[in-house]
């Protein structure tokens, strides 16, 4: 974040104009400021300035126990809270060496795939509204709301779910939740067809996205881009396939790629990913056993059940110890990456053997993907900057943490 900004002018070059876009610009999806150097209406250089939403989450994590810090992870990427929960919990479980029961793993997969769908729906709606297609926004938020209701039914919260806990889940999912998922899974494919009817062959949509925001595969890798931004440039890198976690290797799905490397290609990738996620959700619904533990069995790490706490002395002691002091993973460091809707969400966690994480670092996909904005905008018109910001699918909460 910089309060002043200077751009060196090259002697002899035609005079350029510096224009400030944001932080209160509607197309910046929050508080992103982009300093544009223009020649006429052509963008010579776009320089994103970030930090307006910095809340020091990594520092706060160090002052909380491992379980308490889960609530902070919801707030990093507020459009995909469950993905963040999953990344954090997997890192902590790797640190402790904890095996999560299969049932909890499948439920985690199902819910994170629903998260991917909601996140892509928000992206689709806002990206379309940025480029002048109002109705898609209204439709996609309607469908998103149905999935948010599932979150609320399962975890008690629409957005800040904190439903995944170290070792498994916070609660047994309520009865009848799979029927609700079933209803969404049945209705959603038709709705996606609706969006595609509105956009895929829409001439304005094509004119605004095809050939705009070009990113070659080499540039994407050099800029550390991940997620649909990388796959839209033809690199089939998906962590769910390459480094499977949470039993993703048992699911049958395809990594969606497109080769053009423009905004339209990334649109195709994301829409295809919604359909692919639905496929995974359907498989997960079949796989989830109706009964079984939702949390690992690990005294001293996982809180005992209510009943155990009230009837056994060990249960009471563990309950008291876990909720007052926390648990202490062995010393060491881990890096756990998951495929969040935006790309590689990495959690670097270091333990010094105390009940509080010594250091937690989030490798936020939005933060890294935003770096490629400069490349995407170069030589394009101002109107394309809006398309380019939209296509990177950033969440400013995650960029600034």
């Amino acid at each position, binding site marked *: *974040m*910089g*309060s*002043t900004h200077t751009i060196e002018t090259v002697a002899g070059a035609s005079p350029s104009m510096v224009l400030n876009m944001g932080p209160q610009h509607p197309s910046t999806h929050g508080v992103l400021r982009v300093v544009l150097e223009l020649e006429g209406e052509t963008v010579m250089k776009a320089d994103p300035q*970030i*930090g307006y939403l*910095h809340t*020091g989450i*990594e*520092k*706060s994590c*160090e*002052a909380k126990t491992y379980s308490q810090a889960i609530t902070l992870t919801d707030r990093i990427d507020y459009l995909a809270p469950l993905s963040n929960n999953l990344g954090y919990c997997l890192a902590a479980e*790797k*640190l402790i*060496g904890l095996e999560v029961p299969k049932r909890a793993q499948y439920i985690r997969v199902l819910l994170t795939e629903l998260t991917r769908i909601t996140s892509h729906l928000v992206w689709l709606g806002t990206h379309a509204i940025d480029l002048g297609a109002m109705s898609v926004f209204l439709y996609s938020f309607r469908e998103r709301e149905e999935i948010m209701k599932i979150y609320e039914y399962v975890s008690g919260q629409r957005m800040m779910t904190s439903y995944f806990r170290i070792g498994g889940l916070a609660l047994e999912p309520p009865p009848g939740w799979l029927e609700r998922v079933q209803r969404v899974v049945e209705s959603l494919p038709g709705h996606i067809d609706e969006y595609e009817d509105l956009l895929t062959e829409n001439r304005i949509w094509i004119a605004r996205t095809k050939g705009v925001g070009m990113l070659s595969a080499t540039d994407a*890798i*050099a*800029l*550390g*881009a991940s997620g649909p931004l990388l796959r839209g440039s033809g*690199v089939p*890198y998906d962590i769910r396939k*390459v*480094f499977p976690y949470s039993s993703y290797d048992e699911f049958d799905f395809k990594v969606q790629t497109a080769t053009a490397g423009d905004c339209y290609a990334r649109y195709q990738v994301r829409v295809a990913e919604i359909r692919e996620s639905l496929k995974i959700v359907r498989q997960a619904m079949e796989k989830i056993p109706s009964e079984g533990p939702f949390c690992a069995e690990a005294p001293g790490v996982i809180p005992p059940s209510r009943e155990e706490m009230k009837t056994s002395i060990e249960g009471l002691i563990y309950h008291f110890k876990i909720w007052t002091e926390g648990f202490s993973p062995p010393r*060491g*460091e*881990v*890096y756990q*990456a998951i495929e969040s809707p935006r790309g*590689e969400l*990495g959690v*670097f966690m*270091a333990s010094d053997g105390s009940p509080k994480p*010594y*250091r937690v*670092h989030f*490798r936020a996909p939005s*933060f*890294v993907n*935003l*770096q490629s904005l400069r490349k995407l905008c170069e030589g394009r018109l101002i109107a394309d900057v809006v398309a380019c910001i939209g296509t990177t699918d950033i969440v400013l909460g995650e960029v*600034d*943490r």
Partner: protein
Amino acid sequence: MRKLQEWDARSVAEVIESRGETTVVLPREYLFPVAQYLATEPSLKFSFLSDIATVDRFPLEPRFEVNYQLLAIDLALRLRLKVKLAGNDPVIRSVFPIWPNADWHERENFDLFGIRFEGHPNLRRILLPDEWEGHPLRKDYPTEGFR
């Protein structure tokens, strides 16, 4: 890993295998050549820099540990490089010429830890305002800030 030792055995100070992850501890002056070797060697091609994360071990010395998470997409291989830096001299060579996305990662570590990356073209604060004092993720910086 073996390749790295064959290439230049002096470059590797220590190898840590833990929880399925490989960490190579490097002396500071070897970071840049090793990084360049790993990124360009055709049989390895660690062309993707995932992340740079610093850990402050205050009051121990050497105080800072800078961790580089590398990824070889074709081989599906991850590797962590670790460099330890003394508290009174947290300077390290920038890997920006090798991986352009190190730009913001290094600025973040400069901003929050005060690590100076030599050769970085634009080492300014990134998340905090330019006039901010101190580096908040250091362990001697109180969580509630200075009052």
